[in-house]
Structure formats: C-alpha cells, structure tokens
C-alpha cells in the first residue's frame, strides 16, 4: 500500500513493507539475449534485467504488447530458456540446469500454453495427456491422480473424459485438460501464457474462475502472461507492465490502473473502453529488441517527452541519455515505477 519515491528507481526498501513471506519463485536480474535473431542480424535482448517475485498463492499478471519479452521471461522462469545472465530462484535457491534438478523443478512450476488445441497431442486421449506428467515423474496411483486432477478442473465425472480425444472436446474443455495435466504434478506455481486468448469470449470467465478456485483450494500461485488488461483486472493480485524487455511499472491492479504513473501505462489505460482518461494513442510500434533506445527505452514514443512535460520538469536530458536501472522485485502492496518524470513527481 506504500507509494514510491526517490530517484528514477523508486521505492527501494524505503517505504516498502517487509516481505511477509519468502517468494516461491523469483527472477533475479534476469537477462536473456538471443544471438542473431533480429531482422538486421543483431542480437535481440528479449529480457533486459528483470526482477520479479511471486509469493505463495499470489497471482501475478505480466502484461505488455507483443515483442516486449513477457513470453521469454515466462519461459525462463519455467526453465525452458536459460538466462544469459542472472538467476531464476526457487524457494531462495538458484535453479540448476542439470536434467535431474530441472525435472524436480518441473514438479513445482508448471506451464499452461495459449492454444489448448496445439498443446494436446491429437493422438493421445485425455487420460494419456493428463497421465503423461505422472508417468514422466514415475508417481504412483496414476489413475487416482488423473481422476482427481480432472475433477478439480471441472470435468466431472472424470471417467467420462478418459477416453475422449482432444478434437472431440470444446475449446474450454481442452484448456481444462491442459490445466489438469499441469495440476497432476501438484505444482506450487502455474505459468499461464495467454490462457484464455484462444477461447470463445463467453467461456473465458469460467477458466479464469477455475484459476481463482485453484488458488483458493490448493494455494496455487500463478504467473499469467497476457496482453489483456481486463484479465489482469479480473484475477490478478499484482500486475507488472513490461516494455521492451523490462518491467516499467508494478503494483496492484488498483494502484496501477487507478493511478498509472508510467507514461506507457497511462497510454495503455487511456485507450481501454470506458476509460475516464482522454485516449493517448501512441504512434508507431514498439521498436525491435535488437535496437533498444538509449536512455529510457520508451523515450522515442513517450507522449510526456513529446509534449514538453518532461522538459518542463527538467528531466528531458535524462530521458534521452540516462538509462534507468531495473526495478527491484516488489513485495505485495508496493507500487514501483521506472520513469525519470515519475520520480520527480514524488510519492
């Protein structure tokens, strides 16, 4: 609940409440760089210094537009991608990438992808799809575990679904099967990449309600990657806005949506329907991750810089010249923003 203050990096330890519980998964100064991926052959920095904590039972929404690096960050947290530098920590300890340790980690952090149709092998039945995790990790009581996972995801009676194939199910049911497949390993964290984007609008609410229910019943934490701000409003405890590989603002949805402080967040909020703010439509598109602008990475598109508000506040040179440090991991309730102008405006 504390506001932020200080330099372009705000809120460090000054007024933040001490972390109540240790985070279950955290990204510490993660940097992910892909060689030779950019259109012009340069190295693309998909994630450019991110610190993010997920507390037990917390639902964190990672929002941003395509190309901002949120999917790469999610995959790095899952261990599917190795950070070029920085660490992913689980229960305080850094991740080991040896196959045995990684496999054990998989039991704790699981993945739900965007397209449920593609996520399920069309030749495997629902039972086989959900039991796959059980078999990989050689757990006992396979049938009971599968039935339990399917029930928890709302597919009741589970036996009726055992022998169905994915193409016989609807989109919503397929996504439930995917979630059940992740649940069967009893993870502590679920990483969901656009979990409802491919589903019909009228069934999205059901899947989101399922995630909330799992949090209530199992204490499941979740990192939901999405570009849909309405989703974050619906289910997130905390919200992190990403732009070009870095988190630029973080806080609870109430804090971020009601009082956006970063110009990018303000622009995003303003173009939503029923927004009280006059729409600020940014021109152009996010630049290539191979060519991150100097100074503040948002400055070429920043309406505050363009309108002269930054110059009036005296930070215009900093916007174009001084790079901003990465935001530290925020505990719940802390709102942080990474912006030269916002820093001068104080708490």
């Amino acid at each position, binding site marked *: 609940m504390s506001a932020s203050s200080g330099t372009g990096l705000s809120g460090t330890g000054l007024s933040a409440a001490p972390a109540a519980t240790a985070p279950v998964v955290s990204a510490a100064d993660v940097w992910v760089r892909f060689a030779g991926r950019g259109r012009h052959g340069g190295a693309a920095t998909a994630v450019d210094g991110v610190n993010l904590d997920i507390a037990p039972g917390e639902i964190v929404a990672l929002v941003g537009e395509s190309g901002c690096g949120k999917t790469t960050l999610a995959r790095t947290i899952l261990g599917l991608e190795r950070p070029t530098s920085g660490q992913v920590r689980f229960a305080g300890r850094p991740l080991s990438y040896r196959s045995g340790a990684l496999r054990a980690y998989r039991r704790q952090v699981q993945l739900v992808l965007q397209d449920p149709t593609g996520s399920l092998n069309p030749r495997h039945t629902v039972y086989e799809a959900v039991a796959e995790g059980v078999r990989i990790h050689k757990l006992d009581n396979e049938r009971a575990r599968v039935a339990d996972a399917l029930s928890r995801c709302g597919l009741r*009676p589970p036996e009726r679904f055992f022998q169905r194939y994915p193409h016989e199910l609807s989109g919503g049911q397929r996504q439930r099967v995917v979630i059940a497949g992740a649940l069967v390993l009893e993870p502590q964290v679920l990483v969901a990449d656009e979990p409802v984007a491919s589903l019909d609008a009228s069934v999205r609410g059901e899947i989101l309600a399922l995630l909330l229910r799992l949090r209530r019943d199992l204490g499941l934490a979740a990192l939901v990657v999405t570009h849909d701000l309405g989703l974050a409003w619906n289910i997130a405890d905390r919200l992190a806005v990403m732009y070009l590989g870095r988190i630029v603002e973080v806080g609870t949805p109430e804090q971020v949506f009601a009082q956006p402080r970063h110009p990018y967040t303000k622009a995003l909020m303003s173009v939503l329907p029923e927004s009280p703010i006059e729409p600020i439509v940014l021109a152009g598109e996010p630049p290539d991750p191979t060519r991150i602008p100097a100074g503040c990475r948002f400055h070429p598109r920043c309406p505050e810089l363009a309108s002269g508000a930054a110059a009036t506040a005296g930070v215009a040179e900093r916007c174009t010249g001084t790079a901003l440090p990465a935001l530290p991991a925020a505990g719940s309730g802390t709102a942080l923003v990474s912006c030269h102008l916002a820093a001068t405006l104080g708490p």
Partner: protein
Amino acid sequence: MNAVTSSGATDPVPAPGLESRPASPVPTPRQLARTRRRAALARFWREYRKDRRGMFGLVVLAVMIAVALAAPVLASSRGLNPIYATATPNAGPSLAYPLGTDADGRSVLTLLIWGSRNSLLVGLTATLISILIGALVGVVAGHFGSIRARAGRLTDNVLMRGTDWFLVVPFLPLAMVLARTLGPSLGVIILVIGLTSWAGTARIVRAQALAVETRPYLERAKALGAGHWHQMYRHVLPNVMPLLLANTILTVAGTILAETTLSFLGLGDPIRPTWGQMLGSAYEYGVGTGNLLWLLAPGIAVILVVLAFTLVGHALEAVLDPKLRER
C-alpha cells in the same frame, strides 16, 4: 435479469440426461484403449475401402503373399532342382507345365511361385532394415536438430552429413563390389539395398520430425519434465508414423525393383530363384530360342507387385492425410 454466479459451485460441464455416477463397472484404461483402437481401425478400413485402386492393389498383394506363403503346397520344391527336371527345355505351355519350361526343363510356374517367396522376402527384409535405420536417424536428427543448443545442432549435422554420404553412394558399383568380396547371395542383395535406401527415408522423416517439434505439445512435454527419449517416442514418432507407413509401402516397391535389377545382373544367389534371376536367365538362355513366356512371366509379376505396392501406398497416404488434417 438474474446472472450466473462464478463461484464455481455448479458443475461447469453440462451433461444433459447423463447422471454423475456410471451404472456399470468402469473398464480399465487399457481395455478402453483397445476398444478405441479397434474402432479406429474399423474407421480406417471403411475409408480405405472407398479407394478402388487401393483395393485392387491390396487384393493383388494379398494373392501374391498367399501364393508365396503357400509355395510348398502349390508346387513341390523338387521342381526347382534341375536334376529332377525331365521335361523338354524351353517348351511352350502345356497342361503339365502351364507356363512352359526353362532352359533346364523346370516348370516356369514352379519357378515363379517359389521366386515370389524370395523376391518378396528380399524386398520386405531390405525395406525393414532401410526403414528402421532411416526412421531412427530421421527422428533423432529432427529432434536434436530443433534444440537450440549447440550440442543438438551438432548431432543433427553429423547425422545428416552421414545421411548425405549414403545418399550419394552409387548403388550398382557397391553391389558389384560387395558381391565380389562377399560372394553373391541374397544376403548381399538385402544388405546393399538396405544400405542405399535408408537415407531417403531419413530425410523425409527428419523433415516431418522438425515440423512436429514446433508444435506446442512438444513444448508442453518439455515443461512437464520429459526427457529426450520420452519426447521422441511418445510424441515425435507417433506423429511421424503415418508418413513413415506410406513411405514404407512405397519403398518396398522400389526395393523389389532394385532386387530385380541386381539379380538380373547375376549378383544374387544363383541357386535360389527370384524373379530377377529368372529374368536374367530367360534373357540369356530363353529369348534366343523363342521362349518368351519364361521372360514375360516374371516380368509381368514384378510389374504387378510394384504396381500393387504403389497403389496401396498412395491409398494409404490419401486415407491417413485427411485424418491428420481434421485432427
């Protein structure tokens, strides 16, 4: 208007008319899997039956395989031994010898029937070797080739360069060299054909494996903690199977033709008759004396069997492909 609550107290999946508890004992997953497989096979058969040319090919194949299996019953193996040949050599068709005789006086029909055994055996064995090696190399190369790490790409490269080498190895000279060094036999033919045809399969399988690797369920398997073996065996291979099956059938056709060629050139076993060998002998000893039947019989037989395999292979592709698409 009253609205639906979202607390999730209600069962979100509508089941009109179906009660929550099943009345009869629930069969085990394995039993259910078997029933599903049977149903899938029945569906497949129904689809296949609609393809006229595929059915024709299948019938021809069935007849040939039946003849090959029943060879001892249909024609005594003594008929193969030139010592027991009492008929006039290079004779025309008669009641006792419906297809005439060869230069040693053996019944061409007997030779044909027994030749079918060897030809099909060589063809199928060589194909089996070719497919096994090709599929293994293809799946491994495709799987490891799609890993971004350097070790993966290295494996793929090494395997593919090896495959390329086998692709360009000339088929006939290799056969002749091996026949010279190891002595002519059916085993040599099987070896040669197997070694020179697996590379084509490997390339096709690798291409399909690369496509499969991009699908999200592979990513999900990795996220679940699956190792390489699990990914290849449970996900890549089953999705490569339809392509492999159709490719196998078509490969058999090519293999039989290859065997025919090698035996024709005398690189096969001079004692065990195959159609190719019959063709070779008939060409040398029969045509000159006007015994065209000796040449035509195995020739037509080879054409028929290759045609049959090709038709079946194409029909399989047609049946399996739309199913893949609709899934």
